């Protein structure tokens, strides 16, 4: 009993309360998204909001269980957890159920579980465990290759399930590498590669190259104009030219048509409002029509009359935007950013390297979901079907995010036990 009180005493209430607030706000908006005047009972277990409530209660139970587990457990069994996730990802390819094009679900009783959601936790644990080892030197190529392997293995398995969206999330753990000491140049390269790809698709390639050429020249002229610098700049420029053109070629050659359309829609090259652009257009209409104050709870016409598809899952932020307006959207974004800040703050105060890096992993994964999901509803990012943490309808994702977060809260409270 005394030990238990100790556990709850030392958990970080900031994070716990932010978690609770987000989950409750999410539930309210799911209620609004699927609200139907004829079936308005909040406790209707057939409706999504009814189910979500069960999942919220279950996730609270999960959180409690995690807080009661010994602090060393997660670091000790990190690789095991990762291994189980990989096995589940393999198993689901063979025996999974197909839901909306992705063969990534296990049917357990009445509940559909998606191993990919849980694999993110496994990857975060494995990365933290590996880099937490004091002998590992991130400067070495071998280390980097191992880390790449830890990420690529689940990514490939997830892509095989046609769930490219979830695969992207694993990339977020690069922030953990960076915090663990990966070189600035490599980080810059890892950031520059996708950034350049986006620019190559988003703007005129020739203008992009002229801009790069001019900035390269200006940079060279501002240095001491050594031959070596010039050669480096030329090499980078040539590599960029090749890359920019191969991205364009790759998109046209290798992406599936629907993915290509999504990219074209995003960059305004395609304004097919009845096809791929429909979701984003309706999403923008929903959020844009919310105004400053919003239309009020259950008053969103886009929401109520189902103009936005997937509104309780991937497009849940539309409901926030439409019914709560700018003020509500601002609040939700502020809550998320505050949560990320708090997690980083807690991570930095960890004594164990494992805990610290795991904290960074948690923040990175949540952040990437946040950035892609809201970016998508605002028409800033292509339509990639990944949930908004704690908000989107769905047991698997809610439980996975809860476990992800509460393992970190447990690690943070474990700090005191190490005294």
């Amino acid at each position, binding site marked *: 009993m005394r030990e238990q009180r100790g556990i709850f005493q030392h958990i970080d209430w900031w994070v716990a309360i932010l978690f609770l607030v987000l989950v409750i706000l999410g539930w309210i908006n799911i209620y609004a998204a699927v609200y139907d005047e004829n079936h308005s009972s909040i406790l209707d277990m057939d409706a999504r909001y009814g189910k979500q409530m069960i999942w919220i209660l279950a996730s609270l139970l999960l959180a409690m269980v995690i807080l009661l587990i010994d602090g060393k457990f997660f670091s000790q069994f990190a690789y095991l957890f990762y291994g189980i996730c990989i096995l589940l990802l393999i198993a689901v390819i063979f025996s999974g159920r197909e839901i909306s094009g992705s063969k990534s679900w296990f049917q357990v009783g009445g509940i559909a579980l998606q191993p990919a959601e849980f694999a993110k936790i496994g990857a975060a644990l494995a990365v933290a465990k590996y880099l937490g080892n004091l002998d590992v030197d991130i400067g070495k190529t071998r280390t980097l290759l191992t880390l790449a392997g830890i990420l690529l293995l689940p990514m490939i398995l997830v892509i095989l399930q046609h769930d490219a969206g979830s695969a992207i999330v694993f990339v977020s753990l690069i922030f953990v590498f960076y915090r663990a000491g990966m070189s600035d140049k490599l980080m810059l390269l890892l950031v520059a590669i996708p950034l350049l790809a986006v620019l190559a698709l988003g703007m005129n390639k020739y203008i992009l190259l002229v801009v790069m050429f001019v900035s390269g020249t200006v940079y060279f002229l501002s240095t001491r104009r050594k031959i070596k610098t010039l050669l480096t700049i030329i090499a980078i420029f040539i590599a960029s030219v090749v890359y920019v053109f191969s991205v364009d070629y790759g998109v046209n050659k290798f992406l599936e048509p629907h993915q290509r359309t999504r990219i074209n829609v995003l960059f305004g090259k395609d304004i097919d409002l009845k096809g791929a652009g429909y979701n984003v257009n309706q999403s923008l209409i929903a959020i844009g029509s919310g105004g400053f104050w919003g239309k009020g709870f259950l008053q969103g016409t886009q929401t109520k009359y189902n103009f936005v598809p997937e509104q309780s899952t991937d497009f849940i932020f539309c409901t926030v935007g439409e019914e709560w307006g700018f003020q509500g959207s601002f609040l939700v974004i*502020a809550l998320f950013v505050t949560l990320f800040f708090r997690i980083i703050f807690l991570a930095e105060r960890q004594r164990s390297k494992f805990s610290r890096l795991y904290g960074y992993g948690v923040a990175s994964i949540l*952040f990437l979901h946040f950035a892609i999901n809201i970016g998508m509803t605002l028409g800033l990012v292509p339509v990639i079907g990944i949930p908004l943490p704690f908000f989107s309808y769905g047991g698997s994702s809610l439980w996975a995010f809860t476990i992800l977060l509460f393992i970190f809260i447990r690690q943070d409270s474990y700090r005191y036990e190490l005294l």
Partner: protein
Amino acid sequence: MKLVNSNRKIIILGLFVLIGLVFIIRLFTIQIIADRYVLSANNNVLRYITQWPARGLIYDRFGKLLVYNEAAYDLMVTPRQVKTLDTTELCQLIGIEKEDFIERMKKARNYSPYRASLFEAQISRENYGYLEEKIYKFPGFFVQPHPLRKYSFPIAAHTLGYIGEVGPEFILKNTYYRSGDYIGISGIEKSYEELLRGKKGLKIRVVDVFNRDKGSFQNGKYDTTSFSGTDLYSSLDADLQAYGELLMSGKKGSIVAIEPSTGEILCMISSPSYDPNLLVGRARKMNYLKLSEDSVLVPLFNRALMAMYPPGSTFKLVDALVGQQEGVLFPDTRYGCPGGFSLGNGKMVSCHNHWSPLDLRQSIQFSCNTYYCRVFRSIIDKKSFSTTREGFEVWRKHVMSMGFGKKLGVDIPGELNGNIPSSNYYDRYHGKNRWTSMAIISLGIGQGEIGITPVQLANLAALIANRGSYLTPHVIRAIGQKKHLNENYQQNKVSDIDPHYFDIVVAGMHDVVEAGTAASAKIDSIPFCGKTGTAQNPHGKNHSIFVAFAPMNNPKIAISVVVENSGYGATWAAPIASLMIEKYIKRVVKRKDLEQNMINGILLTKSKVVDQ
């Protein structure tokens, strides 16, 4: 190392803040700056449904319903809601081919898969009955009431007019109308459009993404109710109108009858005519095309208001009045008639056989051309006028004060001015001031450049009946349930001619019927006044003209009759006018032989169009 790490922490936190800010800026632009999203959201869910009010009814002067509305229905389709259906059955129900069905579905889908568009317009009430029973079999289809205009009798087409779908260029000019609305296009339907149409209502419904109705928008806060159109009470006598049309069958021409004391038009016949029900509903376009393409009969042409004729001898009445007013003509003024009036250049205006000399009253009775050439000259060349022009202008002013040469202002669109030539016209023709009364002498007997419409001619009869004044002829006497009098037409218009000059003219007109040029038109029981006329027609046989009013004292009806290409006024126009007078005053016509002769007189070859 420590420093590097804290830098990296700041870089990562900075990225979080950056993305958060990007989102907030984006939200700010789309939620607060841009307003197109609010509009789009409303367009998504709000459906504006027009409530068409019942158009005002039109009655005749005895309360007979002339124009009313009949329930009809538009079949609408929302393509997205259409499920597999028995196409053949639906096609049979509304009487279309399968190819039409496919074509129309394609058109509707192109308009919008989610919004209702017109599939089949104006389904009659009988067909609607069958359709109503079966409509549940055709999801995505629904029926919407859209009343049809109906005309109780196949008469008065030109006067009543017709309605049709409002054209796109008119929608731009007048914001009241939307595509799909009806508007009066001619006749009373046009001139009283704003009263007849009533006020449209609007219902705003909320629909979901599948266009399913989700109830009214904000409990109907922004809905407006429709108000029925105002009923109109016309001055037409439906029986008289029908009788006139019967008499005019097979003839080209016009009859206009006016109640002198009120200016109310009792009937207005333009022949050939058409059944107003032809220009209703689905067949309107096709029938309109047929009618408008008939260049032989020109059935759409309203002769009563738009045809101009030289008035012939009927115009002698005008000269008799102007001459007296100008003090150059007196009841005992006598002019001898040597069988015509010599123009001095070897030509002459011939006259028919009658005793001579005649005084004023007799000159009307026997319609002496010589007499009126001299009267005309005595007016124009009166000593107090320094020039011909001055004399002519005085004559013209008097003539125009009797309602000639300008629109009377009848409440039906399309009325023409007629033509009383100006001195400028003769200046252009003969050279400035190089014309004399002799050059324009034919005006004195109603020939030449003078152009009068049948309604102006009827108005002349009314003016004489009233001894010098008239009320603007009109077909709508009262407006609305409370039958407010049509105030536009309550004002008495007084001519230049003093009332006492009329007595001798009236007496002469009475003689015309009793023992003059129109003795064949005499009605034993009704003493009435008339004047024959024969309009010279350079293109063919002369037009037969007659003006009359009855009874002589306290007149109830003033009438003009024009029968084109039929010869002398006494042959056709006078008997027809006399029958009309008998019909109006006695309600029954006893002179069956005369009636049959008139009805059976076919003066034109029937065209295929009216031959139904």
